[in-house]
């Protein structure tokens, strides 16, 4: 049992080492001539060196702060707005019906296409990134909050009403937990989309930020830096998704566990 449980992690590490060695080899790293141009694929050794340089430089602090603060603001306002509008629409079927075509149309539009416009309207600074993030996050949360209100089990409403619950008690005891369950179930997607929106916004136009730096480095064929920033973004992503996963697991612990982990 324990031997077979150890198997997978050990194999993973072995695979990773082999992969890095192969990468180092074809990229012409420490001991060999490059098969691919060094301008296209940077060897892991060069990436690591550059990652260290970048992270210890003042540049990193500026870039990371720009990206993370925009993502945090985007997530905060996007989630808040999504909850408020989603619940309101859930309680007002007529208003929801009126706005439905608009919401569906907006939702079908790839949100990143708004980036150039937002940039024109709000400039290269923080605002355009935050807005893009808000819009992206808003729709995910909005639809989940809306469905959370709409999909409340009618039998639970009846049973709780018979016990004497008024409108507000119903909202607190039955509707709110249902809404929360929908929102938390989508939290991982929400968080990673919120960060992605900021990075894409920075690609399109910015003067700082991880996305901006990545795009800039690619433009001048500074491949080690491109990979270094990708690693930084990966770590940011993994951390946020892990936090979201734990929050979800905690809040939704009343659900029967799902066997497939994704």
């Amino acid at each position: 049992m324990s031997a077979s449980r150890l198997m997978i992690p050990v194999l993973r590490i072995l695979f990773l080492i082999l992969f890095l060695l192969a990468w180092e080899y074809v990229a012409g790293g420490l001991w060999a001539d490059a098969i691919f141009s060094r301008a296209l694929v940077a060897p892991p050794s060069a990436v690591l060196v550059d990652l260290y340089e970048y992270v210890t430089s003042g540049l990193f602090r500026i870039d990371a702060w720009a990206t993370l603060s925009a993502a945090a603001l985007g997530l905060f306002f996007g989630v808040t707005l999504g909850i408020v509008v989603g619940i309101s629409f859930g309680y007002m079927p007529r208003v929801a019906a009126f706005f439905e075509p608009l919401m569906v149309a907006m939702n079908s539009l790839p949100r990143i296409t708004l980036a150039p416009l937002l940039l024109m309207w709000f400039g290269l600074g923080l605002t355009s990134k935050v807005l893009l993030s808000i819009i992206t996050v808003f729709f995910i949360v909005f639809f989940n909050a809306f469905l959370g209100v709409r999909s409340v089990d009618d039998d639970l409403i009846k049973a709780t009403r018979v016990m004497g619950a008024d409108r507000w008690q119903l909202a607190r005891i039955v509707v709110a937990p249902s809404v929360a369950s929908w929102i938390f179930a989508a939290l991982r997607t929400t968080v990673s989309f919120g960060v992605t929106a900021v990075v894409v916004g920075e690609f399109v136009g910015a003067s700082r930020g991880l996305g901006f730096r990545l795009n800039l480095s690619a433009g001048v064929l500074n491949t080690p830096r491109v990979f270094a920033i990708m690693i930084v973004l990966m770590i940011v992503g993994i951390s946020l998704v892990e936090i979201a996963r734990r929050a979800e697991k905690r809040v939704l612990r009343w659900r029967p566990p799902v066997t497939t982990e994704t």
Partner: protein
Amino acid sequence: MSVRISNLNVTFGKDLHVLDDVNLQVEDGEFITLVGPSGCGKSTILNAVSGILSREQATITGEIEIGSDKGTGKKRTSLGYVFQKDNLLPWRTVEQNVKTGMEIRNYSKEQQNQRCAELMQLVGLDGFEDYYPYQVSGGMRQRASLIRTLAYDPQTILMDEPFGALDAQTRMTLQAELISIWSGSKKTIIFVTHDLSEAITLGERVLVMSKNPGRVKGEYRIDLPHPRDPFQLFGDPDCAALQTEIWQSIRDEYKYDTDADEEAAEREERTS
């Protein structure tokens, strides 16, 4: 509290006449059972009494009195309703579920804790306070649903096939628990079932309904001594004789089950 239903008529939509001039009287502290084929409107009676049958879905005429509280289709205050589905809130633990009704009625924290602990013990749920509904068996969920209703002390309790989804053993155990709870508290209980032997085991009086449209067709006083033990009554000759007697008079209702009837039953279920 006594319950009196006079000339109750319920029509769904334009022409689905579910209840036709139903009259019934339940004394304070009495346990009656309503039995009848599916689609006869048993549940609709309870829904009308509890007020969850809305006027948008149905045309309701007649008078429903609970104690001195008159009117139809309105919200009742001292009423409990136990459904066939346990309807526990999945995000609340067993304990939190049991306290829900008390919480709604602003019982103090101490009162909630005390009553909850007592009732959990009464039905053998102690030790399962912090479990979520999905983690316990169907029988335990239905027990929790029952004591959740008892917890806020309603004087009248409506029960709609509450043990219908349970296996035979668990059902009898819960019947026994219900009998002992009722004997100790003398609540007024209206218990709906399609199972004649359950109706006889529990009820002081069995009301038999017919369908299309639903009417109260017959009434049988059950003189089996109290407190009754469902496990002993199972196979008891007196009980069997009663069952045969009632069955003889109502078998016509169960005999034909045409597609039209089933359709009517489904429509009723969907709208109620």
